[in-house]
């Protein structure tokens, strides 16, 4: 199924959607958004690309196997969850916050890294599932 319109749109939408997903990820702590939603949006970007250009193109674009994102994201999330134990001796998943605001990102804390981990895991899981299903058709 090749469609010129979908093809063109998907190429423009891919970077836009990924940018939007990062935006949603970053605003997630106090406002609606977060790692899970962001990850889903990013995954949708790639799935749309796969729809328009075929799975092999998307795989080439991704370079790494999406399954690889799962352990990386998990590791990031676990480390940020363990950070309070290692740093201040507070229980697992306690929020650690940097005092000063940083441009664009706002306040940096362990929650952001946790969310980033979730973001990566969600992308990895979604793409792995969708790719597996569509490959076996």
């Amino acid at each position: 199924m090749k469609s010129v319109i979908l093809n063109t749109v998907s190429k423009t939408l891919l970077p836009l959607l990924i940018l939007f997903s990062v935006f949603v990820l970053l605003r997630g702590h106090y406002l609606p958004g977060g790692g899970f939603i962001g990850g889903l949006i990013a995954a949708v970007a790639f799935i749309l690309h796969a729809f328009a250009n075929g799975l092999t193109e998307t795989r080439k674009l991704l370079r790494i196997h999406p399954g690889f994102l799962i352990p990386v994201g998990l590791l990031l999330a676990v480390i940020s969850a363990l950070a309070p134990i290692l740093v201040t001796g507070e229980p697992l998943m306690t929020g650690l916050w940097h005092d000063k605001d940083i441009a664009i990102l706002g306040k940096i804390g362990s929650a952001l890294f946790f969310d980033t981990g979730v973001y990566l895991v969600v992308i990895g899981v979604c793409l792995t599932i969708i790719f597996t299903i569509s490959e076996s058709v």
Partner: protein
Amino acid sequence: MSEHLTIYPIIVHLLTAILLLLFWMKPQVQRYISILGSAVGIVIAVLLFQRVWENGIQSVQLGNWEAPFGISMVADTLAVTLILLTNIVAFALSIYSTETMVSSRVKFGYYAIFHFLVMGLSGAFLTGDLFNLYVWFEVIIISSFVLLTIGGRKIQIEGAVKYFTLNMISSIIFLTGIAMVYGATGSLNMAELSRIIPEIENKGLMATISLVFFIGFGVKSGVFPLYFWLPASYHTPPAAVSALFAGLLTKVGIYAMIRVFTLIFPLGETNQMILMIISALTIFFGGIGALVQKDVLRVFSYLIICHIGFMVGGLSLFTEVAIIGAVLYMFHDIIVKATLFMMGGVFYRIFGHTKMENMGGLMNNYPRLSLLFAIPLFALVGIPPLSGFWPKVSLFSASYEQGAIFMLIVFIFASLITLVIIAKVWNKTFSKNPTTLPRQKNLRYFDQFSIREKAAFIVPIAMLVGVTLYYSFFAEHFQLIATRIGEELMNSEHYYNAVFKTKEVTEL
């Protein structure tokens, strides 16, 4: 660092699983990581056990949110003992899997999922929050689905469909119960619920909710009308997987049942009656089912159901002695059932199948192996002084003291039918002469194994048999642990105080 020991059993297996995922394509490396991770798991479980034994119930509030608002992780004696046993079984199975799991299955992520499953079990034992318990249950279920279907043989897929459907429905029922509890009380923290629920006026609603939970956990533990997924699926996956399932998955349902029906909804007379009848029916149908089966693994599957009846029965009597008996039985059952299915794997490698008609002659051909295998089988029957005997003493005396002659008869019936079943298994597999069948071409048989491969099969079995023997001859240690568990379970203020840190120290 060390004051957060409570959550480390979860973290260890999570980190191991992540590490395994990173070494996705290297089966040999994965095998070593898995064994190492499980070994660390045992060490941490021992440390945690020691700490709980010395300092009473430990609790951690995740994210430093105070008790009823955040998620509490609570390690009481029951939870840590189960975690210790889980880790021992996991360690034995990591070794056992080195030879039984072919590399293609390892590349499918067998070890990573295996550790996710153990992580889910540890989490389910430790959590002090009902919804969190649901989440851990789902972790367990998803992992077990994958483990069940790895390999994708026809019969595996068919078993998985049944397993999947019933477990999904049970999760949905459990979640319905959680929604009702939240609607009625506005809290999901188990410790807080133990204070709120007795004060609620609407007893009928509470009784209904408790039965919704019973159905949810009942499917998971495989009690009478809800067990059909178990014998349909447990004999289909590779031996290492079914050993893990047999040892631990049903027990986590029983654990949840014991926790919820002692802490949150202490059993009333009606519910006790229901549980008693269900326990009796579970024992009866499990036993009869095991009697008519002709495949060793399926006999063992039905035996799991039959013996779940002991634990439910112990819970239904709801006295301290009976709970001690149920808990002791659970400890014994975890080890022995895992051993049985590992033995099933060895049978498969010796005969190339697990049909009892064509098996036999083990005693003549493998005398030392037969001696090793005899111990768990006899322990299951409860021949003194082996491990099955001690919990039965508690259960029998509890039912006698309470005047529950019905339960006494049920327990005796269960012991007898187990004896008959084990005698049948012994006759058909160990002593009679085998019919020799043509060998399968693409299966390596036990007598073709090198010493190393044989060791990978036998050493973990011997390890677990060692634990059984320890349980048998040092039963007073387990009795001591179980006594303390009984006291903790029957007096919910210990649990409450540990979670809310009301400054009376929770020494016993």
